[in-house]
């Protein structure tokens, strides 16, 4: 008999939602695993830095409840990677708490595995000294200072920790940061499927029905065998076509064909996409080349406190000299802020000028402004909330009053849509670490804890 592994992905990210009917149809197809990806770096470094969850607790609990009710009574393992958004320890614990609550409320009993991924900074410094860390393409080399400044660093696990948790009898696996495809690859390989289609199935399943047409947050079923996989949305309103499936490999990947994963390279250069029905596609021809085992490290660093205000001008005389006007504002703000003890080296002031180059910044090729109005987001970043708010506040005072050549609008240069107009955005983070490390083993950075939940 041909070995196969059926896996049901409920959505793109835990908390994005999915139709209950799609889950039910998927469960009727007797999947070996039910899962969902939990996160992404895409919404920015804030979730890694702050440790706050990307999605609301209500939305995550709704999705998790339906998954546990579908999986646990049928002995279908429920597996989630990058739990909570960035896959931090705090996010993992929040979602584990939701799982325990749901178990109590629904009378479910299961063995829960938590796979941890946060790394001690001392360990990262040690690896750096040992020359085990290298930069990814277009990322600066890592330094000791950058590691020190980082608020939090996670490792991105591969498939092996998932396989280990499943082999230890876990009914529910919640993992902190993991490669998006790793949970699925681990599930399929734990049932003896070859790495190439297992990893490719992860690439498909991690985004729910993003590979279908129409796209959406919905359930996708993959049936993986040793040399191919079949994918089909469980919602009859969606279809997978060879083109929609091939197109998905472009999504958020630097290359559509070469995917670097922990322990190997998934090569989809010679993939074939064959329609099985008008809603299902067979994907074959992928290869897996084993390589040195690398783990990606992701770190976030706090770069200060951000405050913003929003304003706009409808004055053509001002619009015609917007650059010199903003330069005058910048100088005036510097003088006044220095006067109250916040000199320019203590803050950064950025003008996002919509209607000019607000979307592309310096990369904007169109230099001529053709709009009759400009919107400006004034951004101040400083070490403390007090300083950021003080500088923003004085900018809000200066902006309406600065003189320019031919000025007729003597009562104010800008329209402010809100009162109060100053908005505290909060702590701001950037990605500081985006590097790979050679670990002692695929498991060494990702301890697993088990508990019986009832």
């Amino acid at each position: 008999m041909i070995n196969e592994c059926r896996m049901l992905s409920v959505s793109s990210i835990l908390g994005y939602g999915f139709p209950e009917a799609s889950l039910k149809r998927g469960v009727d197809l007797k999947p070996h695993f039910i899962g969902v990806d939990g996160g992404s770096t895409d919404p920015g470094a804030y979730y890694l830095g702050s440790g706050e969850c990307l999605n609301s607790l209500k939305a995550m609990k709704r999705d998790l409840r339906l998954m546990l009710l579908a999986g646990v009574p049928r002995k279908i393992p429920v597996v989630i990677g990058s739990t909570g958004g960035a896959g931090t320890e705090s996010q993992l614990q929040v979602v584990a708490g939701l799982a325990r609550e749901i178990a109590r409320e629904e009378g479910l009993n299961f063995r829960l595995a938590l796979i941890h991924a946060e790394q001690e900074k001392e360990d990262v410094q040690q690896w750096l000294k040992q020359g085990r860390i290298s930069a990814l393409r277009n990322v600066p080399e890592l330094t000791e200072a950058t590691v020190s400044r980082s608020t939090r660093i996670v490792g991105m696990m591969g498939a092996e920790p998932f396989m280990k948790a499943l082999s230890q009898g876990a009914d529910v696996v919640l993992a902190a940061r993991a490669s998006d495809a790793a949970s699925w690859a681990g599930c399929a390989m734990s049932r003896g499927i070859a790495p190439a289609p297992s990893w490719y199935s992860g690439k498909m399943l991690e985004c729910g029905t993003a590979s279908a047409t129409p796209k959406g947050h919905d359930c996708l079923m993959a049936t993986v065998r040793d040399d191919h996989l079949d994918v089909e949305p469980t919602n009859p309103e969606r279809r997978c076509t060879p083109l929609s499936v091939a197109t998905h490999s472009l999504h958020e990947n630097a290359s559509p064909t070469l995917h670097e994963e922990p322990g190997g390279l998934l090569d989809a250069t010679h993939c074939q996409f064959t329609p099985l029905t008008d809603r299902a596609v067979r994907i074959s021809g992928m290869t897996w080349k084993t390589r040195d085992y690398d783990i990606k490290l992701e770190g976030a660093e706090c770069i200060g406190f951000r405050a913003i205000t929003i304003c706009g001008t409808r004055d053509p005389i001002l619009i015609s000299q917007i650059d010199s006007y903003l330069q005058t504002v910048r100088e005036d703000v510097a003088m006044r802020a220095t006067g109250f003890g916040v000199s320019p080296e203590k803050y950064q002031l950025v003008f996002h000028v919509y209607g000019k180059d607000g979307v592309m910044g310096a990369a904007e090729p169109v230099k001529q402004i053709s709009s009759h109005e400009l919107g400006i987001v004034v951004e101040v970043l400083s070490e403390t909330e007090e300083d950021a708010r003080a500088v923003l506040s004085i900018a809000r005072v200066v902006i309406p009053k600065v003189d320019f050549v031919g000025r007729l609008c003597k009562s104010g240069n800008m329209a402010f849509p809100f009162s109060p107009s100053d908005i505290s955005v909060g702590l701001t983070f950037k990605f500081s670490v985006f590097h790979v490390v050679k670990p002692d083993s695929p498991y060494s950075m990702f301890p697993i804890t088990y508990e019986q939940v009832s």
Partner: protein
Amino acid sequence: MPKISELAKVCKSKNAGPFEVTIDVMFETKEIFDKVEQTGVLCAALFSKLYNVPEKAVLFTIYPAALAFKGTIPRCTSSGDIGDTDVYGAQQHAPLLDVEIPI
């Protein structure tokens, strides 16, 4: 001469991690895709010129299975850092729209 905006089915950008943006141009039929490919206009040098990045920093892939061309370029500011304008990298495709294709 037709522009990409008149020939393509999809022209989009998105982060490929926080330090790179990837831009995809896709066509409706194999016939148009092949014609566009033959002109050689879509290449690493084009992305280098349009986005003012070194050509060797551009990862360019022709992907016939999706009737697509893909260019991945470094971000001048990493996603969400001070001065970033586009956290998701979703609105960096426009310079390609006006590129003329001699077919």
